């Protein structure tokens, strides 16, 4: 089973979703209504299922806005600064998140896929 299919199944079970269209572009919090307890459970399930270390703040982009503010205060290029904090994402994705950040939390399924892939390479 590929990572997306497996993640989709995990999320469907966890959030008790049936027949919802879930794609890599689906927003976990905005579209699926995931709350902190759901994300916590998702983190431990990803750790267990994919055998990767999961750092909650990193996988769920919890501090994205904080880092953005930090970059501005330090006068550093925001995309580079954030790419260093989130090595699994890549600069294109970081820029995309920054474009839409005012609409709400930007965490997407594809970010989880990137994280699992990145952490799996470290093993």
């Amino acid at each position, binding site marked *: 089973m590929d990572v997306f299919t497996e993640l989709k199944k995990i999320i469907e079970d966890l959030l008790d979703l049936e027949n919802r269209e879930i794609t890599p572009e689906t927003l976990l919090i905005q579209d699926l209504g995931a709350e902190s307890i759901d994300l916590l*459970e998702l983190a431990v399930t990803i750790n*267990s299922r994919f055998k990767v270390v999961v750092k909650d703040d990193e996988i769920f982009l919890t501090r994205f806005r904080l880092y953005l503010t930090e970059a501005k205060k330090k006068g550093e290029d925001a995309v580079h600064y954030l790419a260093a904090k989130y090595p699994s994402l890549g600069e294109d994705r970081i820029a995309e998140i920054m474009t839409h950040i005012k609409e709400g939390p930007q965490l997407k399924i594809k970010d989880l896929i990137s994280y699992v892939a990145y952490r799996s390479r470290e093993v």
Partner: protein
Amino acid sequence: MSLHFSGSRALILGGTCELALTTAHYMIESDLFPLLTYRDDKGLSGITEALRSFQGRYETCHLNFGDRDSLDSVFTQIGDDLNFLIDFAHGNYESLIAGSDEETVYRYFMENISFRAEILKRVGRAMLKKRKGRLVYISSAAAERPNPGQGFYAAAKLASEALYRNMGLELGERGVTTVILRPGYIEAGRGRDYLQRQDQKILEMTPIKRALTGEEIAQTILFLLSDSAAGINATAISMDGGLTAGK
């Protein structure tokens, strides 16, 4: 009526104290499997001696509060197969606050509060994987009624109670619940030594006019671990013969 339990594997922090050993005894008799932590060889010998008739029905693991490496090895030993946590561990630091040593205070709070939070994070995540777990924290009636010199002890106990309470609030919907037990004077271990040094005045203050026994506390803990008590969540229960009820 008999007690039923959801699972069998129980991590007992501070497993060398007399109360923990009495509780482990009852747990093994109820087909639970305790893993008791110890800090040094003396503690380990104490466990082995107390549970000598139960070989193969419990495990021990070394844990030094404040030492992350020892915590890592505890969780390597447990795997993620954990159903219960019973926390008897506490450090002592007696000092008037205005006379305290800063370094000692920093270390004391790190070991007894921050490190406890770290343990709870790991325990919580392990139990979330099964969507089931039960945590019991053994606090003390002294937490709310400290003597001069017990400020740091009380602070650590109350902070730890808050952590356990919030674990129950946060994870209750996922099947992980918590309860805090506040025993009063106990005829066991350190409590027995203390009572022997005091005169009868101490027990006169207790409405039931006696100290609690280790056995009745351990039996209460067994009940709190059981399915019958799962509705008791994120709260503290006093077991002090009424000591803290009145003036």
